[in-house]
């Protein structure tokens, strides 16, 4: 995987993580409904699960 593609995939992964957690704060602030929060969380989950495997285990550990 080249550097720019890797960066894009990583960025998508972190957007996925963001969609997993941030909507809950919006529910807490009573800005978002529970149903919408659950949909956003599912989208975030799917984005993370389909992008993270492409880079997460390829980080080289320092000796």
């Amino acid at each position, binding site marked *: 995987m080249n550097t720019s593609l890797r960066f894009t995939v990583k960025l998508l992964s972190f957007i*996925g*993580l963001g969609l*997993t*957690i941030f*909507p*809950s*704060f919006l*529910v*807490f602030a*009573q800005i978002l409904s*529970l149903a919408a*929060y*659950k*949909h956003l*969380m*599912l989208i*975030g*989950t799917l984005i*993370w*699960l389909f992008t*993270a*495997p492409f880079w*997460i*285990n390829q*980080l080289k*550990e*320092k000796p």
Partner: protein
Amino acid sequence: MTKLQSSLKEQLNAVDEYERVPVPKAKVKGFKSFVGMVAGEHIAGTEFVIGPLFVLHGASAGDVFWGLLFGNILATLSWVLICAPVAVKTRLTIFYQLEKISGIGLVSLYNAINGLLFCVTAAAMIGVSASALGLLFDVEGPGLTDLYPTSLPWVFIIILIGIVIAVVATFGFDRVSKFANIFAPWMPLVFLACGIAMLPELGVTKFSDFWAVANEKIWTGIPVEGQTKYTFWHIIIFSWLCNSAMHIGLTDMSIYRYAKKAHYGLASAFGMFIGHFMAWLASGILCAVALQAGNDNPSPGQIAFMGAGIAGAICVVTAGWTTANPTIYRAGLAIQGLFPQLRRWKITLIVGLIATALACSPAIVSKLDQFLGFYALLASPVGAVVLVDVYLFPKFGLLSNLAELKKVTFNWAVLLSWICAVGGSYILYNYWQADFYFFMAIPGWCIAAISYPLFAYLQQNFIFKTINQ
């Protein structure tokens, strides 16, 4: 045999897990490998059971917060100061180290008990995962008291989950660790999100309201009818010793023997404070919402689905996977000690299939807490024996690894101290009428740590000398 089959077999045969030799320096892992693995392992679907336990047993909010804080610090210290140093010094599994100390006869008994109990634990995780997957596909699972599965689709779900877990564990520590890494950053966020999003249902709309509502509606200090009252001491002992077999019992030597340095035991803090602090608090909040809605016995799948919808159910499935994977890996290592001539991957695959078969019987799985408690009683004294043998025997002028040196198959000093410790702690358990067997893990550990050097002194200074004369 097709090319694919032979290539797969070659790959599996090439996986060396150093079952009977120390892990070589070149194969040790960095801190990150342990963080992902322990964070994944200690965020299990069962966190959705334990968190509610404190709510149902009427612990107060202060007891829960302080109890979990101190208990998890003690658990982390047990890994850092006891388990990881022995693992890094010997670089062996507990099973092979114990064989060198106690002889093949005694270790076979220990390995058989370990293998069986790991299978039951993994089966419980498969069952929890299946309950969530069943919820997604509208397949109703059997009740907790059913001995056999109630429908074919349920068995299919169990087999599907069991195969994934068995195959991952078969490929060894590296794959188990990499599999966990994928889910480790995401799972804690699901638990955290569930807890935060459900707070308005209890009337918390500002963080400053949280403590008052926590005392009034979540951890009220009043047990649900028919449940015993939990205090600060219950919570601290629960969170410290629920994994006692792993830390003071040293079964996590299987994992930390790969650590570059002993202080990597600190990685366990990620498992403890994410899985056994934040996740238990979040699932407690979810339980309080379920109680408020009239459901006084919610399942992990129901709680997760209520808190996060389909993402919550996926979280329970993966939480079960990431806990069952290292459990089956350990079970494979334990059973391998009984059949050293068989390849580890073949044993791990068989163990995975046994756990899958056990998961089909919810009645066995529902006894998990009793199995684990009993296991902690059996394993903790063994941890004390190994620790004393590795660190203190050279200072006392006693021989370490006696069975290996003297070609003994049954080291009676180990057996006697094990019997004294298990018997003594069981008597204390009945005397104090403790809630769980594992509450007696510390007395059992101490009895073994004191009695083993005494028996070994008698054995090495009188009996062996008499025989040699």
